[in-house]
């Protein structure tokens, strides 16, 4: 497996609380991505990063923010969690970007009650 870890792996939180998910890589890949996976929707891109401090929005970015202060870490923050953000969140990395292989982490299951 590519060196990608996600933390926490499971989290239950209440509506309105802030939540931060962490993705850590040991591959020194330039690109990092956050996806959410929901039944019937497949994998949808939330935000991605193409370098330290360089980030951009994906198709479902509302309610989420990201930060990348180091090559190896990409943080996803839900400023005020809502029940619609209950999902499985996957981080992915890629050496060369979109049209090349992405390696996925093990996922974080987030439940917002």
């Amino acid at each position, binding site marked *: 497996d590519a060196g*990608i870890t996600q933390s926490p792996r499971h989290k239950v939180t209440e509506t309105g609380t802030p939540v931060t998910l962490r993705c850590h890589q040991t591959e020194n890949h330039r690109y990092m*991505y956050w*996806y959410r996976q929901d039944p*019937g*929707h*497949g*994998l*949808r*891109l939330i935000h*991605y990063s*193409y370098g330290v401090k360089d980030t951009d929005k*994906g198709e479902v970015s509302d309610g989420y923010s990201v930060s990348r202060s180091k090559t190896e870490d990409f943080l996803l923050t839900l400023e005020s969690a809502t029940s619609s953000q209950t999902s499985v969140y*996957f981080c*992915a990395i890629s050496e*060369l*970007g*979109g*049209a*090349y*292989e*992405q*390696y*996925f*982490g*093990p*996922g974080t299951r987030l439940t917002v009650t």
Partner: protein
Amino acid sequence: QQQVKQSPQSLIVQKGGISIINCAYENTAFDYFPWYQQFPGKGPALLIAIRPDVSEKKEGRFTISFNKSAKQFSLHIMDSQPGDSATYFCAAGEGNEKLTFGTGTRLTIIP
């Protein structure tokens, strides 16, 4: 707007049979078409990928067929085995841009 449409949503195939999953895309600038395999509780993993300069790519029992004029590509799994039971995602990418994923196909191989 869904740029990559995947079908069927679920598929049941007998052991030893051929599993076929189809995807269609709209953006003619896409130049990379991967298939990902995901087992329950795991992240997706790249299975096989093709670029539009070829019409077919085969790796073991897995084959991608690509029809550029129809803007369609498909995954064929020959001699399907119970261990192939998983969710499969097609995707399409362009240059350094993002990958766009299909909605997934849950494949079940029955003995």
